[in-house]
């Protein structure tokens, strides 16, 4: 199995510290650090390669659902059940700004490339774009064409892509001012974009991952085998776009071959639901987080 050999299936570290479910684990821009957040209302900064906890950020009033670090590692943003988006300073651990405006829980946040705006996806069926440059706390833009909760958001250099429970993956292209809505017919749980930028991987709640061609909206491939029905579980692609990774509600992590949709590898990563899967930006290293309160680092 040469294919599995290059997959990060060996557990390198177990990061313990969160009390309760860990809802998201994200690498920073260069992959040297990781931020995790969870039900215990904290965000934790780790060195996943040495397995140590560096810092704990507390300010959220409720569970923290997503976190994202700027490319320069100076700031990060987080969101959660308290309906706010927090803009943090990494080193001081202070909240620089709180963006209020979502009428419901905020499910996902992302910075854009230049870290000038934060885009948040909320339970209130909207995507909101917040400005980090000015002191304005009003959203720069509210995208409210979604018909149901927006679960996930991904940004490219020119587009905002949101995945919603209404079954659509909507791409908002700023260059041409168009919205492309790809209706998948199934609630979209998580979206992630391939590294070549041509495809978007959408994890749907019918226990299926779907790979879409971004330019045409065609369904390229369907990946099945895992369980994803009621939890927000993540999916992503490896750096070479050769494999698709998805977490399952039974604690397994699946690796599919991108092209022929075969399950290349699956292994038990956690005892409980795998909430988040994050792939190292350069190396073959993976972070998984789970409801069991642990984050595991997987390497080759």
């Amino acid at each position: 199995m040469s294919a599995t050999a290059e997959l990060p299936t060996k557990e390198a570290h177990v990061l313990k510290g969160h009390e309760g479910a860990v809802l998201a684990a994200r690498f920073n821009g260069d992959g040297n650090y990781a931020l995790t957040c969870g039900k215990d209302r904290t965000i934790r900064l780790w060195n996943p390669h040495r397995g140590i906890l560096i810092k704990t950020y507390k300010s959220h009033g409720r569970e923290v659902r997503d976190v994202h670090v700027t490319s320069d590692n100076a700031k990060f943003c987080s969101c959660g059940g308290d309906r706010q988006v927090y803009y943090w300073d990494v080193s001081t651990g202070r909240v620089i700004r709180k963006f209020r405006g979502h009428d419901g829980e905020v499910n996902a946040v992302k910075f854009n490339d230049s870290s000038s705006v934060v885009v948040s996806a909320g339970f209130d069926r909207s995507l909101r774009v917040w400005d980090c440059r000015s002191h304005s706390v009003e959203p720069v833009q509210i995208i409210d064409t979604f018909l149901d909760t927006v679960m996930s958001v991904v940004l490219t250099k020119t587009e905002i892509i949101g995945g919603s429970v209404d079954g659509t993956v909507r791409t908002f292209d700023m260059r041409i001012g168009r919205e492309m809505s790809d209706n998948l017919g199934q609630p979209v749980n998580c979206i992630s974009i391939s590294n070549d930028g041509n495809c978007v991987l959408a994890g749907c709640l019918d226990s299926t991952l779907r790979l879409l061609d971004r330019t045409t909206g065609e369904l390229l491939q369907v990946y099945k085998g895992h369980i994803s029905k009621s939890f927000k579980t993540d999916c992503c692609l490896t750096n070479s776009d050769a494999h698709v990774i998805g977490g399952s509600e039974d604690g397994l992590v699946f690796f599919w071959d991108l092209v022929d949709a075969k399950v290349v590898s699956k292994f038990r990563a956690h005892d409980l639901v795998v909430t988040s899967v994050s792939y190292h930006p350069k190396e073959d290293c993976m972070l998984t987080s789970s409801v069991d309160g642990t984050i595991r680092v997987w390497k080759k």
Partner: protein
Amino acid sequence: MASDEEDFVFHGTPIEREEEIVSRKKKAVAGASGNLRTLPAWKQEVTDEEGRRRFHGAFTGGYSAGYYNTVGSKDGWAPQSFTSSRKNRAGARKQSISDFLDEDEKADMEGQSLSASSQFDTFGFTAAEYSRKQVEKEQHERPSAIPGPVPDELIAPVSESIGVKLLLKMGWRRGHSIKDVRASSDARREARKAFLAFSTDENTKETSDSMVSETEVETSLDPQFSEDIKISESIPVYVLNPKQDLHGLGYDPFKHAPEFREKKRSRLSANKEAGFRKPLSMKESLFGPKSGKTAPGFGIGALEELDVEDEDVYGGYDFDQTYVIEDEQPAKPSNDNRLRLTSKEHDVLPGFGAAKNSDYSMERFNPPTIPKDFVARHKFAGPLEAESKPTLSAPPDVPPPADNNLKLLIEGFATFVSRCGKLYEDLSREKNQSNQLFDFLRGGNGHEYYARRLWEEQQKRSDQSKLTLDVKPSSSVQKMTAEERGSLLGEKPLQRSLKETDTSASSGGSFQFPTNLSDTFTKSASTQEAADAVKPFKDDPAKQERFEQFLKEKYKGGLRSTDFNRVNSMSESARAQERLDFEAAAEAIEKGKAYKEVRRATERPLDFLAGGLQFTSGGTEQIKDTGVVDMKSSTTYPKREEFQWRPSPLLCKRFDLPDPFMGKLPPAPRARNKMDSLIFLPDTVKAASAHQVSESQEHKKETSIDEPEVEVEVENVERPVDLYKAIFSDDSEDDEDHVMNGKIQEGQEKKNEAAASTLNRLIAGDFLESLGKELGFEVPSDVPYQEGTKPMEEESKSRSKPEGSSDKRPDRAGFKQKVEEKTSSLTLGSEEEKSRKQKEKSPRKRSGGNDLSSSESSGDERSKKRSSKKDRYRNNDSESDSSSDYHSRDKQGSRSRRKRRESSREKRSSHKKHSKHHRSKKSSSSKLVYSSDEDRKESKREKRRRRD
């Protein structure tokens, strides 16, 4: 020491010593006993019951008040104070004795006054009244936590009503029902005991365990007994578990940690029972019943309340222990007591383990052995059996009677009799002795035909029964399918009954036969056939069987049987899933069926009118609908749709992208479907290009106000430059502003506006032109175009905004035409354009007397230009804002004048009122000047729209 004492000076009265008070009390006691009678009058003190000196009132000197401790003076009672009858004439106030009495005296008085004593206070009114008074009194004496009088309903009567007392006397006790149940329940208990004894005698095998269970069964079965219990428990027992802890009332320390409650209880019981029962393991109680919903270890803030969203979807779990996946046990519908008992057996009490080998085993009763010669089909011993023998010779074939009604009746009756037996015929003959219609039973009209029909039917029936018996001798025990039953019953598929009902209904329908009824209210058997023929679950025979069962139940009229025992082995979810599958499969079958049905329906439209098949026809339609839905839902995903989306300029800036809508119209209303968006796309593109072209003209005009001729010449040459500017110019000079104050959109917003305004102007001009043509009057052409027009058009743009989106689309269609015309005219050359402009300017002249204001407005315009953009353009919709800003700097006088003018304009253009409401009162001056033009244009536009 003595000298020291002398130096002291005493001020005030010393506080009475304890002894003194005590002595006074003694004195009071003595006084009460009459000892004080001997004291002189002035030494006597009036005291209350507690020996305190009675207080007479501060004004007259405190304790030793009045004359010899009376209220009055030496001269006797003081006269009542004088009140002027001038001020209150009616104030001839009557004195009553209560005016002179103290509170306690009054109370005494009241006690003597006549009222129903509590003894006879049947309804508790007086008692309630009394207690209310008591409380009121108390209220006066000391302030309570709740200010004001206590609400009446809070004060309950203190004493019992006479009824209660009577009942108590009669032996009734609280907590029991009035109905005398004790005797009967006692008797019942006795009876039960006897029964039990009897049963144990019989079945000596039965252990005491089973006895207990049996009694349980019995009690649960015995409705009377349970009712008794209910009645006797109708009055709640208040203190079930007395409060023994020191927590506040209603406080449950284990509310969020039920596992500790269990632990505590076990500890307590362990203490009590001295180790008789071993304490429950912590783990079991922790993870057995999951009652705590919040995640362990943390809650939410004190000021936040627990919402739905705080529910821990991940459930309670153990961090260190491995996760045990609980197998979902299907909830069995426990209809019979046996099941419940066994389930109880499995459900071990906490702290008890299920015994590996129990000496009690449920006694099994074998099903009764079926005699070998038993035939599952009941044979009627009566006349049916006799008749079913096809020994009778066939009656001669007779033509049916002429009367259609009669024929129908005979046919129906024959069918019925053949099915139910001769008995029925006899019965009905007896019954319808006098009925003319049933003459054929008694050998009257149509008797031959009846005999023939009857014979035929019987023939048919016997054949069928023989057939079914031959084919399925073993399956006769099983439930018959609807199909079989239908054929057994001689039911025809719908087409046949259709004809019958058709005729019968037309003839009054007074004799509807059960056959027809059953036919109309159940789905035709043909559906069943189709469903049976199509076997969607061939690979799984069990499933297929269930599917058929499902179909049967689905299409069977009347009540659904809830017999799901066969599927008990499946879990709830699995069953639900299967049900869905079945539904889908059934629908698929129906769909195929639908075509046929429809065809059939169209063949006989009259039948539907007759009402015979209405039920089925409705069903057919439904099927069609579901088919359509199915088709729709089965359309391939993913589906791509495209909409227009307008990113905010700041967003584009933050992403370092050029704004795609720079210099274009404000965001269009979201296209509702694909078609709209497709139609809309070229539209906006054209419009945009038109703006840019026209914008260039605008710029030109700004620079050369006084030389329209020159402007026209230059125009065409310079246009491309401006166009490019409009599209590609980077508003870098505005950058600082943007970043500094976070305000946005200035530069390109301005362009937007300019473009939009020009477009509007062009359109307006076009309208004017056509208006002139239509009305046939000459438009003066020598008024120079002035700068002032521009703000007006900006206004018109802003005004068109608040109009509903529904208005907008047709509008746009109009725009499109206009714009196309315009672009073509622009390319044609400058002369045409010039003339058009002149025409366009003409109405302003007609309106007259606005030279001043227009020039002023042009001045205004310039000042506006100078004033900071920040103020003017906040965002897309801050038009009125900005103008008001601008106006605050304007002259007060001119403003008021304009206002007046505006009001007149508004009157004139009442039909446009709805749009005007959106306009701010402080709208810019120049707009007012041209509002008449604009109104006319708009009315014109409207007219045209209507015509279109």
